[in-house]
């Protein structure tokens, strides 16, 4: 049997990052566990993996593994990522823009993605085997030293080295001043000179050490075993996160979470979060998403166990496919090209044996239960796309904004989700690119949209890759475009304007319905007075007489100025006067008329 070479090479790479980046890492590049894990998924996607399996060790969360069947990673590429992490965030690793097999746009954030793991665990083992290769490398990223002394590390990172030197060796300057004084004898001067020299040397040494420390090793180290023998058929990459941070585990376990956050019916059963999590875990992914869409039994996103929120976030941020017919199930033709592209990319993400799809299902909330929804009345969709030079570089995006006449559910898909290279950037922006902050509108919660940036916009990304620099030209262009599509209620244009129109359209329709019923009721009332064969007609023409009663017909001039102005009062007046007049014409006795009036006024 083949043996692994015992004299295997082992390489030690301190994880050197600039203090600037260290501050961000210390402060938290990712604002959620899913944010950090998404970067691993992106790496797999870049490696043309068709399947990524994440195992979270549910419900203990002691270890998280991310396994893919991609092309694997060469040790050289991995090392480069380790070495260049501090100097660039923009993927200097990548020379191509698309992957080889599926031509997926490369996300290319290997280095920073791996560094972000320091927020989730203390140790990450990376194993990778190139497709068809005869070796496999194993690397251990160890952040435990960093975690052991977080305060010291953070202090060092934030410290201005020179400033500290001044503080520490301020005495040297003082001695130099004294040296210039004429009152000192030569012995004293010699002593001072020696001291100054010694202290200056110490200062220099300390400065070098401090700078060296600041330049590297704050985050931990990486050990690489580059020449392990390949295991046939095991191409791809496995990342095992060990020593998961206690905070992460407690979060995913809902430890110390108040039961007040549970849906009412669950709270009433006095269940623990663990029991509720088990119940939710019984639902398959589609069922969970549909329940949130409909808010079945008061289930909201906020009332979900954290583990399921983690799944939801992952599904939103990673380049997985949509459910069939989604995102807007009443307009399957929406995002057709994108959906085809995602299908062609053939990428699936499976977490704990559950395949994730994008959880966006619209329309939602009460509206999802209604049949025969009509565009213009109940919802509106505005596709948007742009391709052109902005600030001397190409910007290309497309997407849609969807408005529905009731609040979008769950609340996490209110706003706009922006994707760059098919990866979701942060959660939905519920300010609609700051629109709702500047133009307060109750309709912001009724809007949900997605925008896929195919080119550009990346430079607007902040280091957290979860938000944008709002002064970037590409971002400004997108913002301007989105705002123009959102429009204004006052001006009556755009999606917001259309939503106001929809209100009035619905009102008109409602009134028409009321009117039709009124005419039918009136017809029935006239018939009940015994005046058989009389035709009741409603005319809209203006006439001074509000109604005219003939032998065979009664004409109601609905627009007569003599009717009360208020529609409600007008209909009421018609409802009384017309039947009474018809009854009199039919020869009703006063008693019968009184009975009719009582019927109309007391019972109706």
């Amino acid at each position: 049997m083949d043996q692994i070479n015992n004299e295997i090479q082992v390489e030690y790479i301190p994880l050197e990052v600039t203090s600037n980046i260290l501050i961000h890492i210390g402060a938290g590049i990712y604002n959620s566990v899913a944010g950090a894990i998404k970067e691993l998924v992106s790496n797999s996607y870049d490696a043309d993996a068709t399947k990524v399996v994440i195992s979270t060790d549910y419900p203990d969360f002691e270890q998280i593994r991310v396994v893919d069947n991609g092309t694997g990673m060469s040790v050289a590429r991995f090392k480069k990522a380790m070495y260049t992490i501090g100097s660039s965030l923009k993927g200097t690793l990548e020379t191509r823009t698309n992957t080889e097999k599926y031509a997926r746009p490369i996300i290319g954030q290997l280095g920073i993605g791996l560094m972000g793991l320091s927020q989730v665990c203390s140790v990450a083992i990376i194993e990778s085997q190139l497709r068809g290769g005869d070796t496999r490398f194993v690397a251990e990223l160890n952040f435990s030293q960093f975690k052991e002394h977080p305060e010291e590390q953070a202090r060092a990172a934030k410290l201005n080295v020179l400033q500290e030197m001044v503080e520490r060796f301020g005495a040297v300057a003082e001695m130099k001043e004294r040296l210039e004084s004429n009152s000192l004898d030569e012995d004293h001067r010699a002593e001072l000179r020696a001291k100054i020299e010694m202290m200056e040397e110490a200062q220099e040494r300390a400065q070098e050490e401090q700078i060296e420390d600041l330049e590297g090793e704050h985050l931990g180290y990486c050990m690489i075993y580059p020449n392990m023998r390949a295991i046939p058929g095991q191409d791809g990459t496995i990342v095992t996160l060990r020593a998961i941070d206690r905070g992460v585990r407690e979060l995913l376990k809902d430890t110390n979470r108040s039961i007040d956050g549970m849906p009412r019916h669950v709270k009433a059963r006095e269940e623990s979060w663990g029991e509720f999590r088990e119940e939710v875990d019984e639902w398959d992914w589609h069922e969970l998403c549909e329940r949130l869409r409909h808010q079945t039994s008061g289930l909201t996103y906020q009332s979900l166990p954290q583990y399921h929120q983690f799944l939801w976030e992952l599904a939103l941020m990673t380049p997985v496919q949509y459910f069939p017919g989604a995102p807007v199930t009443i307009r399957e033709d929406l995002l057709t090209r994108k959906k085809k592209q995602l299908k062609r990319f053939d990428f699936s993400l499976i977490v704990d044996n559950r395949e994730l799809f994008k959880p966006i299902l619209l329309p939602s909330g009460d509206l999802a239960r209604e049949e025969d929804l009509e565009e213009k009345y109940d919802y509106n969709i505005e596709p948007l796309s742009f391709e052109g030079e902005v600030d001397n570089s190409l910007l290309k995006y497309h997407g849609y904004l969807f408005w529905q006449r009731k609040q979008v559910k769950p609340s996490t898909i209110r706003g706009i989700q922006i994707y760059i290279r098919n990866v979701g950037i942060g959660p939905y922006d519920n300010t609609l690119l700051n629109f709702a902050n500047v133009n307060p509108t109750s309709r912001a919660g009724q809007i949900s949209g997605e925008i896929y940036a195919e080119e550009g916009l990346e430079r607007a990304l902040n280091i957290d890759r979860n938000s944008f620099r709002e002064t970037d030209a590409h971002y400004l262009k997108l913002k301007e475009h989105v705002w123009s599509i959102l429009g204004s209620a006052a001006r009556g244009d755009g999606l917001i304007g259309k939503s106001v129109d929809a209100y009035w359209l619905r009102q008109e329709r409602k009134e028409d319905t009321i009117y039709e019923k009124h005419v039918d009721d009136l017809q029935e009332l006239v018939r009940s007075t015994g005046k058989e064969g009389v035709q009741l007609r409603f005319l809209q023409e203006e006439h001074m007489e509000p109604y005219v009663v003939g032998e065979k017909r009664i004409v109601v001039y609905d627009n007569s100025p003599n009717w009360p102005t208020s529609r409600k009062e007008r209909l009421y007046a018609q409802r009384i006067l017309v039947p009474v007049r018809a009854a009199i014409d039919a020869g009703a006795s006063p008693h019968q008329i009184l009975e009719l009036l009582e019927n109309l006024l007391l019972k109706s």
Partner: protein
Amino acid sequence: MSTRREQRKRKAQAEVPDIIEQKQRKYDEAQWDRSPLKQYVRRYGWLQIIEDYIERRRNDGVELPLKFLTLPGANASDIGLWWKAGVLKKREDGTLNVAICDKEYADVVTIYLRDLGGVLDYSNKPLHEALKAQQGALRKHFPFDVINVDICGSLISRRRKSEMEAVERLFRLQRGQCFLLLLTTRPDVTAMDRLITILQGNFTEGPFREAYHMRYDDMKPEELYERSHIVFNQLVIPKVVARLGREFGYKTYEHFVANYFRGEHDYRMICHSFEFEPIGRRNPTNKYRPRFKHITEDNIDHILNDELSNTVRSSALSAYTDFTVSVVKRDPVDVSAILKDDPELYAELEAEAESLIQWWENVN
């Protein structure tokens, strides 16, 4: 370079041997999937038993597809063979009727089996931990019809108890349903005292003592152990497993028993297969359903005490006694010897084992 940096480097490098050893073992295990010896057990042992079991179920009027639990290794060769032989089927939802547990490979195998519909569930924990976890992925799928426990370590070990705990948990979670247990393990040469104590316990039972003396003359257990710890282990291990079965109201049948040398290493792996039949189920179809429907693993002791009738208990005791006698009388198959004398079969099995490496790539 600063001293601090040096210290860190030294500390990191000190961990190298562990990781290399771990990875080497992983590589060896993956290579072992290619072994014709192991393939012999898969084909003439496990597969044959499963097919016979399906036939017996059919005769009892049960046509339901079998549900498997296995520790598949890197290539899931066992699953491949079952799938190709048609004993492993898909469920209505399209998933393969198998759950897998493997610390190193469960998720990797899951990826590859995804194109075939995926597995019921998987766990990356060691078996005993996977079965322990209250909300673990595997527990909700119990009971299974076939459980294949292929452990590199020892079932009965001097130091570790986890493997035996896992087997006990399996019994608890099976809730009295009939099942096959296919067991591959490596005898622990350091566990002599423990094994001898177990065997000596049986000498108080007349029929066993008699059978033992007849087979091994008046030899003391220590002497048999000295002569062949493999023979010794293959007496003790089935006894221990059947004893557990007895506690849970089962009658134990032993089917294929074998051992083989593992590669260049000077040790043998031993293979045992058991069928556990719940005692006292008059309608044969009921055997294949859990005896206890609504109990959890944790309250099964109480249920066993209260609900297993005296008749079942006494039948279980006598079945166990018969079993221990039969164990003394039978001879395990020496797979290494068989294949040494039959190069043609060796080559055939080698090719078959090879065809099971990445078998999923050649399945429509």
